[in-house]
């Protein structure tokens, strides 16, 4: 028996076929026990009040960022377990680790969770953690709306995640193409969960988009013109503008499907001349900008990380900004490349194929500009930089295969095959995930005040990246062998066996990497390496001029920005005392008050959504009334701001040694 067969055999022994019932019961028991354990802990330690005051009602962007990060990591775990289940199922031909129905549910939640509830919140976590500090602002433009966004997202995520234990999981794929997602083919509540959770989370996302667009445009410190803004702030601005116009078509596509399912409309049904392709069209009007919503922040992060760890100014700042703008503009006009096979005709296909290829130009410019930024620098192999260094050779493959997919007649052979699966995992994992992890390690000291152990983090990195290559590179070849996505299993004799086996092994390596990452976080929390300087990386932008973590008002004195990498310039020109305040000039600072309204509003959305999922319309109406009540309360309540008096500010700043004597 070869090693490969032996491992496959072992997996089959460990996971006998059709273990559907025990695993759901197990998860339910786990959830219940976990929830009880947390509640007991909070009660014993008298932490309920602390949790409510410090976290659940907070409107502080830094804390909201941390909550987004925790949610994203939990969802990464969930989506990752789904991925492992998928890969285990495909380890060999006819390996019945689970039934086809459960397999369909698992790949549906894998896609949905990873895109909407892992990648998006991870991006928003970093926006919240870094953008206001970078642009020298006391908070985002609409702090309470920011909290509303978070809680609506969180309850949307909960809604999707309870589906598999209450009522049934969605199983129509993360795109949920009708008519398969319609009632006739897909009875039960699983699909309703999908529609409602994305709809609710989408509302939160649009609000975040508005918030950060206005924040970046209106809340910058004096002197920071657009051309002096850090690239990450630019990417936040552009990502937000993509969110604004990408999410409404999704809202419509999901909403119309919901009307079909719950109220008997005929948009995408087979009968009454419904037109399923219109859903596909609307979905990808959203879907394509969405992938740029995910990748732009990664581009922004790398544009911060590379100069810092190369000790060198960013090469071609104007070209970097211009290419971000060009990519976002082009991304609105390429969506048909997701369905060249619908017979829209050569004119449409050629137009959208060529517009897709055009995106490679600004993206190529960015790749080379990062390399030229490193050229003539002094590259430090810290963990954020390692992720960036892994990103470049990985992402260039993903981008290049993207160009190959845009060549229309070639796409007729790639579409829906594992070639395409490999491509988009190549860009989303190799681009977005590498990017947000780089950003997470980069801003971690700023968010928490302590650093993550570099040695452990490097091991996590090594396993994850090696696993990534072993997982996804074979999938390109599987596509050329004719294997299509979403196959619950496959027969022997098609030549797919060994590549699938390698791909599965790679996914296990990635899982090991993730476990080390979690261990790294817990270990580093127990053995904290405090960041006392506030500037652990010798940074360039304003957030590193603050102590770690930043005080709740961020800046005691708003800096007056003179150059592009202001903090770097301050350090070089010996102006670092500019960030200190003098005892006589301290002024009271107004910060927004905590509010219970956001979490209540989101809870009302949640109740209403449950009502819609199960067609309990009394409950849906109740939830709707709750939403109106929360909004009315928010409108009538007098939200005078909280004033932090000058003495307190002075004390806080003095404790951090930031007062000029």
């Amino acid at each position, binding site marked *: 028996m070869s090693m490969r067969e032996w491992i496959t055999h072992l997996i089959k022994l460990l996971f006998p076929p059709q273990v559907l019932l025990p695993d759901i019961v197990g998860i339910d028991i786990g959830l219940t026990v976990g929830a009880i354990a947390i509640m007991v802990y909070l009660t014993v330690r008298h932490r309920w009040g602390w949790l409510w005051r410090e976290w659940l009602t907070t409107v502080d962007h830094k804390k909201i960022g941390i909550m987004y990060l925790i949610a994203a990591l939990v969802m990464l775990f969930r989506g990752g377990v789904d991925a492992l289940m998928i890969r285990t199922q495909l380890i060999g031909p006819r390996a019945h680790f689970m039934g086809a129905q459960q397999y369909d549910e698992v790949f549906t939640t894998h896609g949905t969770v990873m895109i909407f509830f892992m990648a998006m919140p991870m991006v928003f976590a970093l926006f919240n953690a870094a953008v206001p500090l970078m642009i020298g602002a006391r908070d985002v433009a609409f702090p309470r709306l920011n909290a509303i966004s978070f809680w609506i997202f969180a309850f949307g995520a909960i809604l999707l995640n309870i589906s598999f234990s209450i009522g049934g999981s969605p199983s129509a794929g993360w795109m949920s193409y009708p008519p398969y997602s319609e009632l006739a083919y897909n009875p039960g509540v699983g699909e309703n969960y999908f529609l409602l959770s994305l709809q609710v989370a989408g509302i939160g996302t649009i609000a975040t988009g508005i918030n950060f667009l206005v924040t970046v445009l209106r809340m910058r410190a004096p002197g920071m013109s657009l051309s002096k803004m850090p690239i990450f702030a630019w990417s936040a601005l552009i990502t937000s503008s993509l969110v604004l116009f990408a999410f409404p078509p999704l809202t419509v596509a999901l909403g119309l499907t919901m009307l079909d399912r719950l109220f008997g409309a005929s948009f995408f049904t087979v009968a009454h001349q419904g037109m399923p392709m219109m859903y596909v069209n609307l979905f990808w009007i959203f879907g394509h900008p969405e992938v740029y919503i995910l990748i732009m922040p990664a581009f922004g992060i790398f544009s911060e990380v590379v100069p810092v760890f190369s000790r060198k100014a960013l090469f071609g700042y104007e070209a970097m900004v211009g290419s971000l703008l060009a990519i976002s503009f082009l991304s609105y006009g390429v969506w048909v490349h997701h369905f060249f*096979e619908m017979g829209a005709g*050569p004119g449409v296909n050629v137009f959208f194929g060529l517009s897709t290829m055009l995106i490679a130009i600004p993206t190529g410019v960015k790749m080379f500009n990062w390399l030229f930024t490193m050229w003539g*620098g002094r590259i430090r192999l810290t963990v954020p930089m390692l992720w960036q260094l892994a990103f470049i050779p990985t992402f260039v493959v993903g981008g290049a295969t993207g160009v190959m997919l845009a060549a229309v007649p070639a796409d007729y052979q790639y579409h*829906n095959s594992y070639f395409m699966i490999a491509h988009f995992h190549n860009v989303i994992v190799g681009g977005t995930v590498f990017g947000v992890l780089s950003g997470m390690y980069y801003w971690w000291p700023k968010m928490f005040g302590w650093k993550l152990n570099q040695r452990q983090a490097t091991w996590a990195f090594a396993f994850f990246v090696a696993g990534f290559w072993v997982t996804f590179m074979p999938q390109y070849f599987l596509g050329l062998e004719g294997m299509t996505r979403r196959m619950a299993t496959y027969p022997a004799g098609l030549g797919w066996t060994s590549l699938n086996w390698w791909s599965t092994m790679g996914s296990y390596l990635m899982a090991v990497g993730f476990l080390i990452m979690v261990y790294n976080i817990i270990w580093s929390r127990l053995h904290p390496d405090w960041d006392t300087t506030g500037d652990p990386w010798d940074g360039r932008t304003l957030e590193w001029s603050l102590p770690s973590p930043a005080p709740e008002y961020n800046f005691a004195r708003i800096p007056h920005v003179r150059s592009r990498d202001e903090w770097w310039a301050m350090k070089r020109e010996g102006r670092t005392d500019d960030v200190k305040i003098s005892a006589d000039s301290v002024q009271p600072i107004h910060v927004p008050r905590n509010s219970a309204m956001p979490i209540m509003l989101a809870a009302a959305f949640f109740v209403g959504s449950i009502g819609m999922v199960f067609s309990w319309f009394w409950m849906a109406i109740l939830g709707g009334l709750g939403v109106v009540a929360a909004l009315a309360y928010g409108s009538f309540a007098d939200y005078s701001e909280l004033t932090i008096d000058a003495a307190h500010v002075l004390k806080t700043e003095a404790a951090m040694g930031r007062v000029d004597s």
Partner: protein
Amino acid sequence: MASGRQRLMKGLGLAVVGLSIAGCGSDYVVLHPAGPVAQSELHLIVLSTVIVGVVILLVWVLWAYVLLRFRDIPGNQAPYLPNWRHHRVLEILVFALPVVALIAIGIPTVRKTYALDHVPSHHPLVIDVTSLDYKWVFEYPRQHIATVNYFYMPVGRPVLFQLTANSPLTAFWVPNLGGMEYAMPNRVLPLWLEATRHGVFLGRNSNFNGIDFWRMTFEAHAVSELDFHAWVHRIQVTKPPMTHRDWRRLLHRSVTAPAAFSGYPANTFPERATQFTVKGLHYIPTREP
């Protein structure tokens, strides 16, 4: 740890070698075209792979060079240019490089897309294809025979497939013969393919449509013109015609074995969108005889 890493590297190396050897195997259906459509598509695949391969290689080499030369280690003699942020020629070059690559890929893309939109024959063999839940029905309107999950086509003669579905969206794909197209309810879409060599080619639905999606395959038999006519004749003589009862059985959600019929009811292939109705889980054409 070191030995573990060595083993990992060895495994990786083996994987790469294995892949390149397997690359020549006939399992790579996309790389082994049996007809002009797949041939044309393969040509574009190879062309684009080579072009983007050059770009990938360039980036990899530059990346490795930068990484080796400009490390922050004591005694590094490489120049340190902390304020080097612009270089006109370089910036034009990195802009021009993708432009050239894209022109090289874009022009054949446009030409092939238009070329593949025309059947190179006035008298193609017409096959009406209906995808039902987990099975494919092929109807030959001129020969008036129908088959399930397999069909015969003559070598050297273009075949025009008219695709529709009386089920969720599916996609028709025979990798050896050429690219796929959706089969969707409420719409009939044309796709032409041609076989230039004999053989049995595996086709499948590539678009997820339910739990037995992965079993929704069919076989395309490419035979000589003579054999094709003999086959048609055999079906016409030996097989019973498809009854409405047979059709209704096909409409059930199920996987069925290949079958053939010497005729089929007139309204099973819906030419107009209004002919689709849905009643529960079963679909029936409105115009019952």
